[in-house]
């Protein structure tokens, strides 16, 4: 259960939102919509514990969590605009590196299976700078496929993905929800998810 109460955000002198509350239960997804500059990314970074709210409180399973707190860092997988890929390393090395950083243990077979699943199997040894924008996004999908964290926070996850990539993202999130995880995503394109489990928060 991820909750927020009375959240307020300011970027420079512009007030983005105030008095914002939300609650996402295990097994549910929250889709955040809003025009550019309404604070979608800021809200997601607050929930991930990367940005300190100007006001308000974030609770994980009832316990108040601050930015960068160990409880949040142990529970959240955050996929932001920046993909955290190193151009010099291959897709496979990047994936292994990110997964290890999150403290997870995966073996070679799992890595290869995840890369095959996102259709990068043939390209997994290429330096990442040779990958297209969509293929780079697919490395992020492979990371999600390996993530067993309870909370996924995805900032514009559909960007640069083709139709099959977007469908795969929907599958991954649906499987995550079915496992009892929860997800918060900001997106313009609709996610292919079971409608009963999805709620929408508009910042407009």
């Amino acid at each position, binding site marked *: 259960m991820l909750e927020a109460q009375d959240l307020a955000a300011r970027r420079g002198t512009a007030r983005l939102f105030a008095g914002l509350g939300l609650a996402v239960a295990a097994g549910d997804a929250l889709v955040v919509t809003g025009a550019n500059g309404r604070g979608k990314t800021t809200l997601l970074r607050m929930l991930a514990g990367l*940005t300190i709210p100007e006001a308000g409180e974030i609770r994980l399973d009832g316990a108040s969590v601050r930015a*960068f707190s*160990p409880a949040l860092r142990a529970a959240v997988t955050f996929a*932001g*605009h920046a993909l955290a890929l*190193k151009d010099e390393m291959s897709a496979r090395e990047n994936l292994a590196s990110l997964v290890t*950083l999150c403290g997870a243990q995966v073996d070679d077979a799992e890595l290869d299976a995840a890369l095959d699943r996102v259709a990068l199997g043939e390209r997994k040894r290429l330096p990442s700078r040779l990958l297209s924008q969509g293929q780079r996004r697919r490395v992020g999908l492979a990371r999600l496929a390996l993530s067993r964290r309870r909370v996924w926070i995805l900032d514009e996850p559909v960007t640069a993905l083709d139709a099959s990539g977007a469908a795969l993202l929907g599958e991954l999130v649906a499987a995550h929800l079915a496992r009892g995880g929860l997800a918060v995503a900001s997106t313009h394109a609709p996610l292919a998810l079971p409608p009963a489990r999805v709620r929408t928060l508009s910042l407009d």
Partner: protein
Amino acid sequence: MAIAQHDDPDAGGDALAGLAWALARDLRLALRTPSELGVQLLFYVVVVTLFPLATSPDRALLAALGPGVLWVAALLASLLSLPRLFALDLADGTLEQMAMSPRPLPGIVSGKILAHWLTTGLPVVLLSPLAALQYGLDAGEIGVLAAGLALGTPILSLLGAIGAALTLGVRAAGALVALLVLPLYVPVLIFGAGAVDAFRAGMAFDANLSLLGAGLIAATLGAPFAAAAAVRIALD
């Protein structure tokens, strides 16, 4: 300590895992771009070589100048790569993933600093005996110089990391890092170059080296926490 409370009390093993992760990754990246390493070393060699050419071939003068020049060159070589220490990771999003890792950030930062020293400081230490020959230093003086550099260059990387983290996202970060960090380097420079002078004068040089060692311990314990705190501020 406020920052230490941030992390699990039983996170010692995690911190080491984070250190090992960052060290392995940064070393791998450094080896993938060997030209960057080469440029820094070449810079050191060129700076060290310019002084004998620009001053005079007088042996006594060169021997007097030598330790100071070698130290200043080591300092500049260390500065050269500092702006990139965190900036690349900030730009591609790796830094926020590091800050969100269950491993404590100071441990990860320590790994990055260690990798920075292994790729910039250690080669300078290893090259210094060769460079010192140009200044006519004798074997004993070279030994004291190299020992001082071995103790001092990690301090340069540690203090430099704080400056690099504080200037994240700032325009002209390179110049600002130099302005922030160079004053902090002064004691290292004084004790390091002073050790060779003391040895030459037949005085006790080990006091200088001991002070460098003490500085290294203090910097190792403090700098990763300060740099990690600065990284978190930069991400906000």
